[in-house]
């Protein structure tokens, strides 16, 4: 399946992916009304220190611990993509406790939130990759783990 891949050598640390993610998932029509003056809640986060920066978002693991441990069954797979039914989520954050990459995040409304590859929002393909100015984030097919 196509996934989001990150190459930290090319990451500029510009945080554009975070803004594009927050906008894509905001439901708003334009970026200014979606983001200006607001606390943003992106599902991808740029981490790092000094010269090292890289973006982290859901890896859509082959055998995701978050899905196994979800107490409500809100987390599930749809054609390989790990999705969350935020209406089922009760906000216990067991997924946050289990994700080895820190890629499932507490959302502003209490329910957990995570990258769903923009398949469910108006963007249609990952906004982080589409807007990355240096191709440090790409969305493509690569060889799968065994």
């Amino acid at each position, binding site marked *: 399946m196509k996934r989001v891949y990150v190459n*930290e050598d090319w990451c500029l640390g510009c945080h554009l992916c975070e803004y594009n993610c927050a906008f894509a998932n905001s439901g708003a029509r334009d970026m200014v009304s979606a983001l200006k003056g607001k606390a943003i809640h992106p599902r991808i986060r740029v981490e*790092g220190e000094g010269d090292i920066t890289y973006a982290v978002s859901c890896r859509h693991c082959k055998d995701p611990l978050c899905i196994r441990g979800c107490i409500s069954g809100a987390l599930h797979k749809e054609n390989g993509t790990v999705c969350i039914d935020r209406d089922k989520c009760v906000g*216990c954050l067991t997924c*946050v406790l*289990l994700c*080895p990459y820190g890629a*499932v995040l507490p959302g502003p409304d209490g329910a957990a939130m995570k990258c769903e590859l923009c398949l469910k929002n108006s963007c249609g393909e990952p906004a982080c990759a589409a807007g990355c100015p240096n191709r440090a984030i790409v969305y493509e097919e690569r*060889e799968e783990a065994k």
Partner: protein
Amino acid sequence: MKRYVIVGGSIAGVSCAEGIRSRDGEGEITLVTAEPVSNYGRPLISYYLEGKTDLRRMSWRGEDFYERNRVNIRHATAAEKLDAAEKQLTLSTGEKLSYDEICLCTGSHPFSPRFEGLETVEHRFFFTTLADALALEETVTKESRVLIVGAGFIGLKCAEGLKDRAGSVTVCDLAAHAMNANLDGDASAILEKHLISNGLRLMLGNTVTRFEGQTAHMQSGETVDFDVLVIAIGVRPETAIFAEAGGDVGRGIKVNERQETSLPSVYAAGDCTESLDVSAGEPGVLAVLPNASMQGFCAGVNMAGGGETFDKGIKLNSIGFFGLHIMSAGTYTEPVYEEVTDTGCKKLFAKDGVLTGFILVGDVSRAGIYTALIRNRTPLDTLDFETLKREPSLLPFGRAYRAEKLGGAV
């Protein structure tokens, strides 16, 4: 065609069916459960009382799970006798089910010490099943004074769930601190303050010595008048049919890393089992939902001829009370990091060069990075632990690790 029988319709049982179906689309699966409903996360029952979920949304793998996976589901049917030599399970209906492979996912049952006068209490409940939650919903009114005995996970989640439904909620526990089994004094103190500020009455280091109708006589000499009593002292693995069949039982049904028991073709998974706690280096009852799911799936795969192992078991818990998040994991060995404020705390524990446990109150973000270190027994000298102690991130793992995880499929 193989015949599979699963006893228990909670998370381990449902995950076992998933595990079987991941390898065997043909075999016949029968799942028997004493409950009238199944396939729901037990920890949801407090959220149900709180109004954060409802019966429809509580379905763990969806209402069509059994149909989709071609599982013969037998609700309200108890398993009464296991004959491992004959490979036969006798049900409460008198029927005998023959199997090739069976998995016991019998869970646990609430435990209550003998309180003098308990039989004089009219409205008394446990809090482990949906039926318990529905009965409490029916009984508790805005005028009810609720007394909960036990300030562990179950008692406190019940208290939170009932808070806005009841007139008052009092929680008592013999232990001096809330969630004594999972937290230390610092973490408990933050939690207790938060619970009290949200309207709960706590009576810690104090428990009921006897009941007299609607009055509880406390160890301290005080009395508590109540209308509804919830006993939430703890649970014990349900091992009866396995023990009667001659199986090897410790604190729970003993299983190996393939979820096999001492009896041939008998597997077990979930809260009824005792298995290796890798953070403690010894067996324990790792009765939490994520383990039940992982163990159940593992058992199912192996029942269908696969080679799955569950060998990273630890105790772990994520829970919130009135907006305060608390996570705990593993075994509290030697403290290696500590941060305590009025509203949150963080403690890390390590031994023999690996992280063995942590407690987080308040800021719980990215806690899974710590959990993975414990489960994988990652040698701490292979990463920058000083940086990682302060904040969980992938930075301390180094470039090669990140390239593999973020640049590859995992």
